[in-house]
């Protein structure tokens, strides 16, 4: 297996994932509509009610829609990570994952390539959302759109790895929707996406602690700081660490025979 083989395989996996995404217009629309509803309806309502004091990385007063934008970007990526992992479970159940896994390349490489392809899809969604948000009046620092890119890649990897870990642990496709609901919404709401942590601490100490230990909070903060060309080292450490742990666990736990094994154990099928 030459280096060129790895490059071509990686390119092939990414290309296929992008093709699939472009053909799933409903998925693209859903990925945009969800955060836009939050931005246009939710943020507009709260803009008047909530004032955000000057906290890092902000150096001046900002509007609420500017505050929640990093959280909505993280939400897009979290949804996309779950969607990608759902697609991996679907592929595993439907058999097309076998084509990938019977390739003479290490399994970790194939899974990471697949994960990265999902991250690229999420970046496409994120920047389209940012464009629409800009048209709606949400202005972020111009260089922030570039500076946030590495942070968005890393957070996309973390959410993708988390999704892959979940997909590695579930046995059947039908179980996945339930797990998604138990992951996505608690992660989003119990984080600094909608309110700053200090505000959360004023309201409930327990909730503050939950938010503080939620990796989603740190993903949001990493993106938020990156937009203002500042580095939140604590957030970087947490997100990088969680990415590494989720990724290692998901590669270790990935079993292409899951589902097949269970069906076979219950009774003979096929040959």
């Amino acid at each position, binding site marked *: 297996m030459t280096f060129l083989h790895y490059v071509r*395989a990686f390119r092939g996996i990414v290309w*296929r994932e992008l093709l699939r995404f472009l*053909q799933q217009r409903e998925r693209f629309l859903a990925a945009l509509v969800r955060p836009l509803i939050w931005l246009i309806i939710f943020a507009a309502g709260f803009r008047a009610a909530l004032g955000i004091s000057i906290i890092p990385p902000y150096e001046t007063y900002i509007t609420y829609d500017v505050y929640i934008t990093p959280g909505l970007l993280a939400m897009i990526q979290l949804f996309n990570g779950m969607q990608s992992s759902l697609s991996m479970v679907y592929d595993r159940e439907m058999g097309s994952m076998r*084509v990938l896994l019977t390739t*003479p390349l290490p399994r970790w490489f194939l899974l990471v390539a697949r994960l990265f392809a999902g991250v690229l899809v999420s970046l496409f969604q994120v920047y389209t959302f940012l464009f629409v948000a800009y048209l709606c009046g949400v202005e972020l620092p111009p260089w922030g759109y570039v500076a946030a890119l590495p942070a968005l890649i890393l957070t996309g990897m973390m959410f993708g790895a988390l999704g892959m870990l979940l997909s590695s642990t579930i046995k059947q496709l039908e179980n996945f929707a339930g797990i998604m609901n138990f992951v996505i919404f608690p992660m989003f709401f119990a984080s600094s996406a909608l309110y700053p942590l200090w505000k959360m601490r004023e309201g409930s100490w327990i909730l503050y602690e939950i938010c503080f230990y939620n990796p989603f909070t740190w993903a949001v903060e990493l993106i938020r700081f990156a937009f203002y060309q500042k580095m939140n080292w604590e957030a970087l450490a947490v997100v990088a660490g969680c990415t590494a742990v989720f990724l290692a666990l998901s590669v270790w736990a990935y079993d292409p025979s899951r589902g097949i094994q269970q069906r076979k154990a219950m009774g003979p099928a096929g*040959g």
Partner: protein
Amino acid sequence: MTMDDTAAGDPRTPQPVLSVQNVSYWYGDKRALDDVSFDVYPGRVTALLGPNGAGKTTLFSLITRLFDAPSGRIEIDGRAASDWGFKVLGPLGVVFQQPTLDLDLSVRQNLRYFAALRGLARRDADERMEKALTSLDMQERIGEKVRALNGGHRRRVEIARALLHSPKLLLLDEPTIGLDDPTREAIVRHIHDLAVADNIGVLWATHLFDEVESKDALVVIDKGRVVARGDVAGIEKETGSDSLAEAFRRLTGDRVEEVAA
């Protein structure tokens, strides 16, 4: 009853392209394969004949490393999976029983994806695609979405895909299931011709007697055990049967009703 392949031990016999030695497998406490051994040689089709639930698909999953073999040894082109890991899959082409094409992509896109996974350059891949699809009479459908193809055409695309990287060993797990007779016959004919022309070792899992030709090597599997192996005439003779169907009935008892004639 187990008959050894008469080719074994002959110094003129080529090295097997697939060697399965004493492989067993369990689903929980249910034994799916019990001490299975056989070889597949280049330039010849080896039919793996057995009723539904005999263990054929499990065996394919072990050969392709989708499952880990807890006991026994599997060698592809002289390399053991336990020693070489994923690298043993290089000379392998597979058509799974379950369709594995991406329905939303075109034939070309599906094949290009596979070619990339196999490390083929775009131009080389396109040339191979054209050759493989032409040989299967599918060249004109290259731009169509797989979803628009019927079952037989999808199968042909899967076979073309499995041949793109010029494999030394081709695994076919019930590739004609659900197809009409003319399509089945065409695929059977094509694979037999291909094995000889390109010197490919073919392992063809089936439960249909009429897909087995007299010149094929034969491995009969039942309830996870190899109950006979050799050539068709030898097995018929050993079992005192006039036909493969009768031989199969004698080897597998009353399970023959699960097998289509």
